[in-house]
C-alpha cells in the first residue's frame, strides 16, 4: 500500500436502485501497481461498483479520486472497464478496434507496435482481420483486454475476466496483469475464482449487499482467520 492520496481512492460510494441499495457507503483504495480482488456472492454489488467507477453509473453519493484528483463525469478516460459481457463492434475487425481506440484516446505515435505485440501475446494475431461478429466470447474478451491495455488508462477494471477464456488465455491474462502491475497501473478484478486470484492479487475487498466485509492483504486476512484457506474465509464471512 502506498500512503497519501496515491492511486485510486473511493470514499463512501453509494448507489441505490429505487429502494434497494446496491452499493452502501463503500470505501477502499487501490494503489499504483496494485491488484485488488473484488469478491462477493452473487448480487453483492460488484458489477455496480465497477460501473460506478467507470462512469457508466452515477453514484448517489461518494467520492472517486485518482492521485488526489477527483474524477468527474468523464472518468471513463482514466478508468478502463473490461465488462463481463464482452461487447465489440460487429462490423469492425480486431485491428480496426485497436485503431479506433488509439485515435479516440489520442495515443501518441508508436501505438501500432504496442498493439501488434498485444494481439500477438493474447493469441489473436491471426484474427487481426476478423470481424467482431465472428469472434467467440473468449476472443472478444481478449480483444477488449487488448483495447483496455492499449488505451493506457491508469486504472484497469476487470469484471469476471476469466469466464470465457481457455486455460492458455487465463495464463496470458495473469501474466499481462503482472506486467501491468509493474507499469504501476491500478488494477481491480471482480471474480468468483478465489484460487486464481490468491496467487495474483495484492489485496482483496469482500463485499456483501453492497457493504465491505473485509479489506486488506490476503495474508493478513488468512492470519486473522487461523491460517485457513481463502475459500474458507470467504464462505465464513459471506454466509454468516
Amino acid at each position, binding site marked *: 500500500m502506498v500512503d497519501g492520496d496515491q492511486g485510486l481512492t473511493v470514499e463512501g460510494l453509494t448507489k441505490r436502485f429505487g429502494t434497494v441499495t*446496491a452499493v452502501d457507503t463503500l470505501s477502499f483504495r487501490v494503489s499504483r501497481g496494485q491488484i485488488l480482488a473484488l469478491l462477493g456472492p452473487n*448480487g453483492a454489488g460488484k458489477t455496480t461498483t465497477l460501473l460506478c467507477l467507470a462512469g457508466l453509473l452515477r453514484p448517489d453519493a461518494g467520492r472517486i479520486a485518482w492521485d488526489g484528483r477527483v474524477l468527474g463525469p468523464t472518468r*471513463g*478516460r482514466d478508468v478502463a*472497464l473490461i465488462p463481463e459481457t464482452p*461487447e465489440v463492434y460487429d462490423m469492425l475487425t480486431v485491428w480496426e478496434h485497436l485503431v479506433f481506440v488509439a485515435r*479516440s484516446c489520442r495515443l*501518441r505515435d508508436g501505438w501500432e507496435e504496442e498493439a501488434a505485440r498485444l494481439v500477438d501475446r493474447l493469441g489473436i494475431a491471426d484474427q487481426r482481420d476478423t470481424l467482431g*461478429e465472428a469472434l467467440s466470447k473468449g476472443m472478444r474478451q481478449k480483444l477488449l483486454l487488448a483495447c483496455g491495455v492499449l488505451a493506457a488508462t491508469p486504472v484497469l477494471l476487470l469484471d469476471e475476466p476469466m469466464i470465457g477464456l481457455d486455460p492458455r488465455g487465463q495464463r496470458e491474462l495473469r501474466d499481462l496483469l503482472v*506486467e501491468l502491475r509493474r507499469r504501476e497501473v491500478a488494477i481491480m478484478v471482480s471474480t468468483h475464482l478465489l484460487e486464481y486470484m490468491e496467487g495474483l492479487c495484492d489485496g482483496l475487498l469482500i463485499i456483501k449487499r453492497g457493504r465491505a466485509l473485509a479489506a486488506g492483504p490476503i495474508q493478513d486476512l488468512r492470519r486473522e482467520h487461523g491460517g485457513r484457506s481463502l475459500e474458507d474465509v470467504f464462505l465464513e464471512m459471506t454466509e454468516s
Partner: protein
Amino acid sequence: MIPSPTLPTRGEGKAAGGDLKALAYLDWRLLVNRVRAIARDPKRLIPWLIFLAWFGLQVPLRLAIGSSRRTPRLPGVLLAGAASLAPGVYLVIAGLVLRAACRRAPAPFSSPADARFLIGSAIPPRLVMLWLQLRALRGQAWRWSAAVVIYFVALPTLTPNLGQAATTMVALALAASFLLGLRLPLFLVARRNPRLPLVYLTDLVTLAGVVSLAAAVARLLNYEVPRLDLPPGSVLVAAIGGDLGALALLFALALGAGALSIALSGDTYPELWETSVRSFTLRRWLRSGEMPSRGDLRRARQDAGLQTRARTTVASDRGTHVPPGAWTQLWKEWLGLRRGLPGGDVTLLLIVGACIAAGLVLGLLARQGPRGLSVGLGGVLGSLLLTFNLVGSYRIGPDLRNPLWWLSAADLQARLLVVNLAGTLKQFLPVTLIIFFAALAAAQPLVFVIGAPLAFAVVWDLRAIGLATYSLFPNPADIRGPGGVLRFMVFYALAIPIFASTLVVGGITRSFVVGGVMGVTVALAEGILLVLFAAWRIGSNGLAFARAERQ
C-alpha cells in the same frame, strides 16, 4: 513482455480535428465492412436484387399512373379530416414523449459496443453528442427518404406529385426532430429540479391534445364548436400544405432543440448509457416484430448491472384447466401476455379504452360525419394492420430454441397451428372490439356480423403467410425486404380464391351470407395449408432457424 519505454501515452495536443477523424474512421469502417459482409454471401443477394428490381420498376409505373387524369384521387374529405385531427394528435404524442423524457434520458448509442467505446474514449462528451446527433439525422434522412419513395410508390393517388410528398416528409421529419431534441434538456431540468411539476405540465400538453382532438372530431360530426388547432401541430399542417414560413419555423425549432441537447450533454453519460441498455433490448425485440416483456427488460438491466437481481414472484397458475397437447401453447401464450405486458392491467385497460373510443368515433362519423370519412379512416386502420403483418418481422426463435418446445407430445404442425391461432387472437380481439363499438355507434349490426369473421380470417391468413415466409427467410433483415415483397405477393395471390369462392358460391346460392361464409372458410383453409408448409420446412431443423433468426 511489454517493455515500458514503448508504452503508448495519451497525447493532449490533438484536439477536435483528431477526434472528429476518429469518429469518421469508426463510421466509415462500419459502413465498408457492412457492405463487404453483404457481398460475402451472394446467394442472399438474389432475393434482394429481385426485390430492388421490382421496386425500381414500380417508380416509372406509378409515375405514369399518378400523372393520368383518370387516376382517382384520394377524397379531399379524408385529407381535410386528417389535417383537422393532426394538431391534436401531435400534441398527444408530444405530451406522452415529453412525459417519458422527464423520467428517462434519450438513448443515442447504436449498440452496447458503441456506448462502451465512445464513453471510454478521450473525445469530449459534447463532441460525441454532436456526432450522435448527426448520426441520428443521417438515419432520419435515410428513413424519411425511403418513406417518400414508398409513399410515392404505394399510394400514387394520395399526392399529386413527388414534391408534395417530399415536403410532407421533410415537415414530418423536422417535427419529429424537434420533439426528440427536447427530450434531453427536459430530462436534465427534471433531474436537477425534482420538485418542479414537469410531469404534470406534460400531462397538460397531452390533455390539450385530447381537447383539440375532441374539438376536431366534434366539428367533423357537425357540432358547432370552436377550432382548437394548437401549435406546433398547426405549424406542421401549414408546412405540409407548402407554407415556407411554417417550414422555416419547424427547421428553427428542430435546430434549436438539437443545439440545446448538445450544449447540455457535458455530464450525461451514465443516464444516456442506462437508457441505451433498455433501448438495445427494445430495438432487438421490435426488429423481431414483438414487444419485450417486463421480464426481458429487467433481465437486460440486470445483465448490464443496472438493477439488482430482485426476485419477482407471481402466484403460480394451479394448472387445473390447462388444455393438453398442442393447446398448452395457447395457455403459455396467455400467461406470457398477462405477465409480460409492460404496465400490466393499466396498459390493458388503456388498450381496451382506446379500442372502444376508436370504434365509437368511427361509428359516430359514419352516422353523422362527412360522407366517406369514416370508411376512409377505417381503411387507414386496416392498412396499418396489413402493413404491420406484411412488413414486420416474424419470430418464433425463442420457442424453437427451447428444449421444452421439442418435448411436447403434440406434433409440430399442431403446435404451429396453435401458435398461429394465438398470434391471430392477439390482433383479432382489439380489432373486433373496434368493429363492435363502431357497429354499435353506427347502429349497423351487419358491420359486426360481417366484419368480425372477416377480420379473423384476414389476420389468420396474414399470420400464416408470415410463418410460411419465415420458414423461407428466417433472418429478420431478409424477411423485411424480399420476405416482405413475397408476403405481399402471396397475400394478393391468396385473395383471389377467397374473392372467387365468395362470388361464385354467393352467386349460385344468391346469398351474401353463404358467399361470405365460403370466403372465410377458404381463407382459413389457406392459412392451415401455409402453416403445414412451414411445419414441413422447420421440422427437425428448428435450431438452425432459431440461429438464423438471431443473426
